[in-house]
Structures are given as C-alpha cells and as structure tokens.
C-alpha cells in the first residue's frame, strides 16, 4: 500500500491535517512536541486505499530528541511526502522543505495556517513559490478544512528532486526565495501579543502564572464538586439504588453472585463506598468519584494546551526544573502526567537525552499522582480539610524536589538547556477543544472503568479464598510495624499494582485515623506505578532502567512512609 508521510516543523498543524484526511483522531495542541510517536490512518484516493502517517515535527533531518528520531526514521518508508509548512513562518520552514526536496520522494506542500498569515499581514505569492520549488503548493486552513480538498486533488502532481542546490547555500537560497514571494505589511501589536509578552516578563509573568494555576485549581475543584454533588451522586441515589435493591432481593443476600455483583449490605442498605460489589462500588467509584474530576482536569488542561500557555509556564519555571536535572519544557510531561501517567510517560520523548528521560519518568512515577488517584485522595482525606490534603500533596512535592535534586547530583552528565520556539497565543477553537476533551474522557470510560471492575472482582475472589488475609499476615511487619497501618490495608496496596484510584477507594471503609489515612495515601501514591504506567515505563526505558527506577521508588517509599508515620503519630 502507498504510504503518505506528513512531515514539517513542530506545531504547524500536521496532526489536524491528519485527522482531516483520515478521520482518525490524534491529539493536537498549541505547542511544539504534541506528537511524539507516529500514528497510521487510511484515506481513499480515487478508489485506492492509501496509508497516511502523522509523525512528530522536525526542524531538520538531524534529530535532537527521541521524538524527532521517530520522524526521521519514518522517511525511509514514505512513498509521498506532504510537507506541512507554517505560512506565517515561511522562511524558517523552507529550511526543511529544501532538504525534503532532495530525498528522492515526491513532495506536495501544504501552506497551512493560511488564515493566520492573513491576519499577520503576510502575503505570499503561491504561484511563484510553486514555480520556484517545482512542486504543488496548496494554501490550507486545517482547522476549518479549507484547501484540504485541493490538497488531495493535487497529490498526483507531486514531484521529487526538484531543487538540488548545494546545502551550504541553503540559507542564501531561502533568502532569495523569500524576497521574491513574500510581502509583509505593517500592523499594530494585537492584544494577544501584548498579553504574550507580559506572560514571559519575570515580574508580570510569575504573577500571571500564580493566578493561572490558582484559577485552574479553583475551576477544577468547582466543576468536579458540582458534578459530584448535583449530578452523579443524586443520579446514583435516586435512579440506581432502587434498581440495585430489587436486584438484591432477586439474588438473595448471602449468595455468591450477590456478593460479587452487589457486595455487602449495611443494615439492608447499599453503601456505595463500602459494599464493594461490581455494580455498586465498582461503578460508583469510577463514575461518580473519578469521572467528574477527569472531565474538569482535562477541560482546564486543554485550555492551557490550546491557548499556548504551557510552554510559557515552562520558561518561567526553567530554573526550578534545572535543579532537578530537567529543563522548563519538562512541565509538559509533568502536567500530562497529572491527568494520567501513561501519556505523561510518553511525552517525555520531547526531552533531549536518556538522562533527562530517566529523571522525568522516575519523578513522575513516584511523586505525580494522576487525577483518578487525586480524586479518591480528596474523597478520603478531604473530610479533614485543607490540613490533611496539604500534608499529602506537600509531602509528594517535597519528595519530587528532593529526589530530583539527588538524581541530578548522582547521575552522570548535565541537564541540557532549553531551546524552544514559543507558539503564538491563540483563542482555543471550541469544537476542537471539546472533541479533545470528549476523547480523553471517553478514554477513561473505555479503558479505565473496565480495569476498576476487574479489580473489584479480583478483590472479591481473593477475599473469598482468604489470600488477602494470608498476605496481610506475612507483610504486617512492614505495613503495621513500619507504616503504622492496619493489616487490612494490604489489600489496597495489592490493588495499587493494578490501578491507583480503586486502591485508594479500598481505604474508604477501613475507618482509618487521620494520620493513617495520610500515610496510606502517600505510600500508595509512591510505592509502585499502576500496571499501565509500568508497561509504558518498560517500553520507554527498557527493563534495566525500569528496574533501577523501581528500586529508587521502593527505597524512597520506605524512608518517606516511616518518617511520616513517626512524625504524625507523635503529633496526635
């Protein structure tokens, strides 16, 4: 099958074009480095099925990160290249274009962001550009789909090796081309540009960053809490409970099936956090406790991604990130990790070297809890107010910082410096943002909820066969002796290997004291990544480095768990 590659600089709209051409959705955001691996999709070209491949953005054919390597490697496989070019940055983009025009693979150019070029007062003579380069050049606006039809029509005119000037003269050539085809009319600074400048000045920037983070936090909390209190909890109590009680009568409390599906009844009533049946706790925890926060978190994150704020935040905290051996751009994987560690781990590919990726991954797996886990921690500890939550998240932050400092000291090498293009601020395009939000939420429902159900099922089986009691007794020297937790928490720790949200959920019915709840949450967050993250770590780091990372994790959790237990039990 013919393969079409989408190649171009980062953040020029390749992924949006890919979605337009194939109908297969891939995430697009307003910062360089959104795409870190290739995605394949299919398109119908006059009755012929062809493969279209979306790859990470590159500035030249010499890769500087893992993500860029992926893209350059793809080059061997392509039968046709759609070179996506940012019309507002023609000069810089041509550097890659001229390299691609020598690769023996036919090329067509999509002059994307055509709408923005217009707003910026940039006028490009497309016909002339086409004549100079010798390949079709099609203006497009991927967001609205303008020009896409034309792009597809002209694929057949693609040509290879049309521009064979020597590499040394490339920039001089580019200069000449620009002079012939581009005119820039003067215009005033827009509001967004002024805002853009203010958000990267040290004084105003830090103030704005504080404000943005505070507002984000408040918005997430408000939306999450409102959805829980006014939508999901009432829905469960009013609509689902009567159904379950009827089912309970049919199944007959005490039967095995009743135990698996409904779980335990308390004075004839269902307790959604304690009954622990598949249809009660198994559905309530992911849908009524986690989902609202997932929705709220990704809503806010998508705004940060699509507006272009995220890399600016990265620049402001570049110094802090250097103390842990990373640079500012590492805020991107860290933020994604707060949603779910799996995409977070993948996003570390935008970092330059192995050392940074190891540090970033280890810190994320140990000290960055995902939204699902945070939601349950709030459910467990929220009743003690800000104090309890402060200790949990404060501890995790200190662990992140101290561990990062240590890793940076111990591991050989230095952290590379930040070098990144700052994207322009853009008003998020609502339909695109909602689509992204919907897909991320759906991903949790499709991939998260089944795992929770499986976990609940497994726990019931293990309890029935007394496996948990047995393991509890074996591990009690550590769990009770060192962490000061009751033996039953071992079930939660075991579940933590599978999924963290339901693991924290299993602490709910245990009636732990406040210090115990705090220690348990911190230990659960740190001691091991969930199965999905673990698999991703092996894929990205290899077995050897993953083992190292896990070893660091276990040492850290022992130290932190013990210390926290000692301090908190003194206090109370």
């Amino acid at each position, binding site marked *: 099958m013919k393969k079409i590659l989408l190649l171009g600089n980062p953040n020029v709209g390749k992924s949006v074009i890919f979605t337009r051409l194939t109908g297969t959705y891939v995430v697009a955001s307003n910062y360089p480095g959104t795409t870190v691996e290739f995605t394949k999709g299919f398109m119908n070209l006059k009755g012929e099925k062809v493969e279209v491949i979306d790859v990470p953005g590159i500035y030249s054919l010499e890769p500087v990160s893992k993500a860029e390597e992926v893209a350059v490697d793809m080059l061997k496989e392509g039968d046709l290249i759609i070179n996506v070019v940012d019309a507002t940055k023609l000069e810089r983009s041509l550097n890659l274009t001229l390299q691609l025009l020598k690769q023996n693979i036919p090329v067509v150019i999509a002059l994307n962001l055509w709408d923005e070029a217009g707003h910026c007062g940039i006028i490009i003579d497309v016909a002339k550009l086409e004549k100079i380069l010798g390949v079709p050049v099609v203006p497009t606006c991927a967001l609205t789909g303008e020009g896409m039809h034309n792009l597809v029509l002209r694929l057949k005119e693609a040509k290879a090796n049309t521009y064979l000037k020597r590499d040394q003269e490339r920039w001089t050539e580019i200069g000449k081309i620009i002079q012939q085809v581009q005119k820039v009319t003067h215009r005033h600074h827009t509001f967004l540009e002024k805002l853009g400048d203010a958000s990267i000045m*040290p004084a105003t920037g830090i103030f704005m960053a504080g404000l943005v983070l505070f507002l984000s936090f408040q918005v997430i909390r408000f939306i999450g809490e409102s959805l829980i209190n006014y939508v999901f909890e009432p829905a469960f109590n009013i609509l689902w409970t009567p159904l379950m009680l009827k089912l309970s009568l049919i199944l007959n409390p005490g039967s095995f099936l009743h135990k698996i599906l409904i779980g335990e009844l308390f004075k004839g009533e269902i307790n959604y956090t304690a009954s622990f049946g598949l249809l009660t706790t198994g559905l309530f925890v992911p849908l009524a406790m986690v989902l609202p926060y997932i929705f709220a978190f990704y809503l806010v994150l998508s705004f940060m991604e699509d507006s272009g704020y995220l890399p600016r935040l990265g*620049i402001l905290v*570049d*110094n802090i990130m250097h103390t842990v051996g990373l640079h500012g751009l590492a805020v991107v994987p860290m933020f994604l990790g707060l949603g779910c560690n799996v995409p977070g781990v993948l996003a570390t590919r935008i970092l330059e070297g192995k050392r940074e990726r190891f540090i970033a991954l280890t810190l994320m797996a140990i000290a960055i809890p995902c939204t699902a886990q945070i939601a349950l921690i709030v459910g467990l500890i929220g009743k003690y107010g800000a104090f309890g939550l402060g200790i949990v998240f404060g501890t995790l932050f200190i662990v992140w910082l101290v561990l990062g400092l240590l890793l940076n000291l111990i591991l050989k090498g230095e952290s590379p410096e*930040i070098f990144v293009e*700052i994207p322009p601020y853009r008003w998020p395009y609502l339909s695109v943002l909602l689509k992204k939000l919907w897909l991320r939420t759906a991903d949790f429902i499709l991939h998260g909820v089944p795992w929770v159900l499986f976990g609940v099922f497994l726990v019931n089986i293990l309890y029935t066969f007394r496996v948990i009691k047995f393991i509890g007794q074996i591990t009690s020297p550590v769990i009770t002796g060192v962490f000061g937790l009751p033996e039953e928490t071992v079930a939660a720790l075991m579940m933590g290997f599978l999924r963290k949200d339901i693991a924290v959920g299993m602490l709910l019915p245990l009636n732990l004291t406040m210090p115990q709840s705090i220690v348990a949450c911190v230990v659960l967050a740190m001691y091991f990544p969930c199965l999905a993250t673990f698999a991703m770590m092996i894929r990205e780091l290899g077995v050897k480095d993953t083992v190292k990372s896990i070893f660091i994790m276990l040492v850290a959790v022992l130290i932190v768990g013990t210390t926290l237990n000692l301090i908190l039990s003194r206090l109370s």
Partner: protein
Amino acid sequence: MKKILDLTQMKQKKKGTVIAVAGGPNLKKRLETLGIRKGAEVTKVSAQVMRGPIIVQVVNTQVAIGFGMAKKIIVEVEKESNIEKLAVKNEKDIITG
C-alpha cells in the same frame, strides 16, 4: 557607533544583528533551525531572573534560549549615541515637567 555583546548582556527591547555563534557545528545547526544564524536580526523580549532563559524575537517567532546557550550568541547592537539619549531625556522632561 556599534557595540559587540552576547545575548545575555543585551538590553531588553533592543535590536541587534547576530555576528557569530561561539560554539561547535552542532550548536550552530540547532540554532539555525529557528533562524538564529549569522546575519539574523534579533530583538530581545525578556530575560528570566537568576540566569534563566533569554527570550528573543527572530523574524516573527519568539524563541526561548537557555542562559549558557545565549552567552554563545554574539550580537552587534547600535550604541545609543549621546544625542539620542539627550533627546529621550528632553522628552521625559517635557512629559514630567
């Protein structure tokens, strides 16, 4: 009058022309990809505190460059002549007084 500085020493909002990159071919190539090369005109947008990244505008792109890297980018700036300074001072005087 011209003055030769590196990017970190340049003043905010000032314009300059890159005259050299004091580094190996890899650094040169990397900087080139975002348009920072000999002859390019750069405007300094801001600098983060405590040797943080320097932000410059090249053509119509803003680029953040780590402090150490920015030190290796040598630029030539037009030195403010005394007459210009005087003019600015006068203007201020007129506004304030």
